[in-house]
């Protein structure tokens, strides 16, 4: 048993959609603003390329209404390590909205899309979170009752709903 295995989280969801549609829903801001945390992703999809997430205007307004302060322009940052569309994406990830999480080291996310029969794909998300207990708690959905969203399981559930029905529950 290694610390790495213990601090890694693995999620899998089966989606009735093409690998290309799933890839787009993960890597394009016009898709990512429609589910989960609604952050606008900005991927430079090559090894060493930048990964940034910016808040939508609605998210910004809500945040400012709630606590007055201004959100940073980039709320998540990282670096692309591997991009093999539409099969595999590996990038680093650091949350900048909260000082406790911003002080933690970059974590590592791997998305793997596999086409099965029946036009169904599996999407597996592996998040290696060594040294980042605050972020680990957030993405596990532990803080959902405080309004912090349900983490990866919630995001993937919404992603599936959006791709299969064209909308999410909140829309």
């Amino acid at each position, binding site marked *: 048993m290694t610390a790495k*295995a*213990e601090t*890694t989280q*693995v999620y899998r*969801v089966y989606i009735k959609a093409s690998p290309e549609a799933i890839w787009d829903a993960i890597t394009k801001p016009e898709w990512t603003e429609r589910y989960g945390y609604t952050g606008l992703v900005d991927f430079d999809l090559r090894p060493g390329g930048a990964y940034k997430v910016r808040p939508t205007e609605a998210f910004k307004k*809500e945040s400012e209404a709630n606590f007055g302060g201004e959100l940073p322009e980039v709320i998540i940052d990282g670096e692309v390590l591997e991009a093999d569309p539409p099969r595999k994406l590996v990038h680093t990830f650091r949350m900048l*909205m909260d000082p406790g999480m911003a002080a933690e080291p970059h974590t590592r996310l791997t998305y793997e899309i596999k086409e099965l029969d029946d036009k169904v794909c599996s999407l597996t998300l592996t998040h290696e979170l060594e040294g980042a207990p605050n972020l680990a708690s957030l993405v596990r959905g532990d*803080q959902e009752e*405080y309004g*912090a969203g349900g983490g990866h399981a919630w995001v993937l559930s919404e992603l599936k709903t959006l791709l299969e029905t064209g909308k999410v529950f909140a829309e």
Partner: protein
Amino acid sequence: MLPRVNDDDAVFKALADPTRRFLLDLLFERDGRTLTELESELEMTRFGVMKHLRVLEESGLVVTQRSGREKLHYLNPVPIRLIHDRWIDKFRERHVSALTELKTKLEES
């Protein structure tokens, strides 16, 4: 066998057994365990534990990953989340949440 897209039956069936719920509790406590590690927590043959793990894997509640020679077992909460979102949220107004509320909460405490 792979889980079907919306196979709630397989999830409920997998959850309807105390040993399998115990295995999920073990992984919730500490994720990424090997068969040997899980087996040591149960009064059961290795074969019995494997059988239960297979049911959990087929339902999607457990996902395995290879790490060198070892097979690590991870708890996958997505199938339960899907049931929650489809069956429970349907009956109440969805609370749209934001990280900002977490920030407020953390700063208050």
